């Protein structure tokens, strides 16, 4: 087993070219899966017997919520790799992740609130999952705020990477303490979605949306990564050559 592929990932021009080459391989499947999932979820799937057509927002809400956590983990892993092995591209990946993750978290919160109105009769319920999402949004905002506050890119990279790693240690603790907190203040659970015994015609579109959102995130990350690499290496000699073609 040779590790050359791994070492080459440390080289900005190589990563820039690789990201450009890989982007369509993620973007097109993502577009197809999301289009198929939306068609299946919004048109083909039958209305829910309790929630009617209102449940269909799950096809945006659940994948967004899933992505918000996954992007955070991606960010923390990239940051840890960059911090431990001093790989600059890792910092670029982590920095590129944060705004995407914050957007997914925001989308999950907004769709959750919109869903809550018909289901709970209120836009905001202090439900443990929604509360965890809100805290996650603040973790993203803190990460981006720290990056914005530090002018020197290297210091911003390393400080924000440490914050991401510290946050990832804390995320499970926060999640469980919020769940614990909620179980004490047992709000009248108007609508508790039990373990989903979802009909297959509802589940398949959801899984397609999950896969589509994941691939969409990767495609978006690759595009943002190229931007990050360009702005970081703006003084390097390989950039004019790459941009000419």
């Amino acid at each position, binding site marked *: 087993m040779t590790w050359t592929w791994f070492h080459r990932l440390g080289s900005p021009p190589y990563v820039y070219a690789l990201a450009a080459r890989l982007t369509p391989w993620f973007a097109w499947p993502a577009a197809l899966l999301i289009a198929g999932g939306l068609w299946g979820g919004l048109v083909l799937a039958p209305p829910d017997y309790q929630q009617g057509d209102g449940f269909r927002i799950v096809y945006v809400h659940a994948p967004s919520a899933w992505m918000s956590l996954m992007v955070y983990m991606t960010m923390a892993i990239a940051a840890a790799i960059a911090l431990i092995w001093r790989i600059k591209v890792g910092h670029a990946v982590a920095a590129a992740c944060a705004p995407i993750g914050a957007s997914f978290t925001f989308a999950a919160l907004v769709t959750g609130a919109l869903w809550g109105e018909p289901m709970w009769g209120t836009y905001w319920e202090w439900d443990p999952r929604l509360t965890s999402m809100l*805290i996650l949004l*603040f*973790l993203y*905002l*803190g990460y981006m*705020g*720290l990056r914005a*506050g*530090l002018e020197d890119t*290297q*210091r911003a990279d*390393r*400080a924000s990477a*440490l*914050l991401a*790693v*510290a*946050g990832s*240690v*804390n995320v499970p*603790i*926060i999640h469980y*303490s*919020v769940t*614990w*907190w909620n179980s*004490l203040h047992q709000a009248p659970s108007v609508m508790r979605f039990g373990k989903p015994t979802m009909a297959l015609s509802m589940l398949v579109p959801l899984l397609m949306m999950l896969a589509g959102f994941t691939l969409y995130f990767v495609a978006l990350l690759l595009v943002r990564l190229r931007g990050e690499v360009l702005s970081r290496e703006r003084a390097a000699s390989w950039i004019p050559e790459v941009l000419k073609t």
Partner: protein
Amino acid sequence: MSSRVSSATGSVATRAAAEQGAASATVAAETAAALRAARLALLRDLQLAFRKRSQLVQPLAFFALVTMLFPLAVSPELSRLRAIAPGVLWVAALLASLLALEFLFRDDAHDGTLEQYALSGQSLTWLMFAKTAAHWLLTGVPLALMAPLAALSLGASPAALPGIVASVTVGSVTLSLIGSIGAALTLGIKRSGALLSLLTLPLSLPVLIFGARATELAMHGAPLAAPLELLAALAVLGVTLAPLAAAAAVRISLE
């Protein structure tokens, strides 16, 4: 022949044992030196703090002030205040400890002490631990001693006070530790107050949840061991990991 072999192995074994002994002796000496340095740093911080007493008093005054805002804003009825007292106490304590974080590293970063710490060759982790311990002694413990007064003014019964003191004492350990990471990361950023709160408050939420729960149980006269043990677990986790992270953050900030 066999005796020679055995004596050779014996001598190798004794030499290995001697080397191991020497190695463990150096490790022990290094640890002793690190602990001595940490003790000196702790004493220095305490001494400096007692020379600038206003820094000690300000977070406490802030704590009392925030607690006073609630009767004025909500209602002077003790029955209503009693219902929100645990939350009020803990939010006020969280904000006061956040306010006090500013004093943790600022002066030392300004006059170069932190750089000297980093260059001293002593374990920066232990020094950070000492600084955080000093900070806890100077803000967490006074807050815990203030908390009964605030709790009484919000309608808590005297029987609840020991539980409240215990929960604030244990919880403020974690608050100081989490805060030390945030303060180290934001070193040198001008007007970092809002950013510091954005970094540390989300991470402090478990302390708030368990602390407020312990206070609530104490006020109802119920056993509060469960949330108190969870607070202690958080404190142990914080003591184990936070000084490492704070030391790394200080090194990053000094680069």
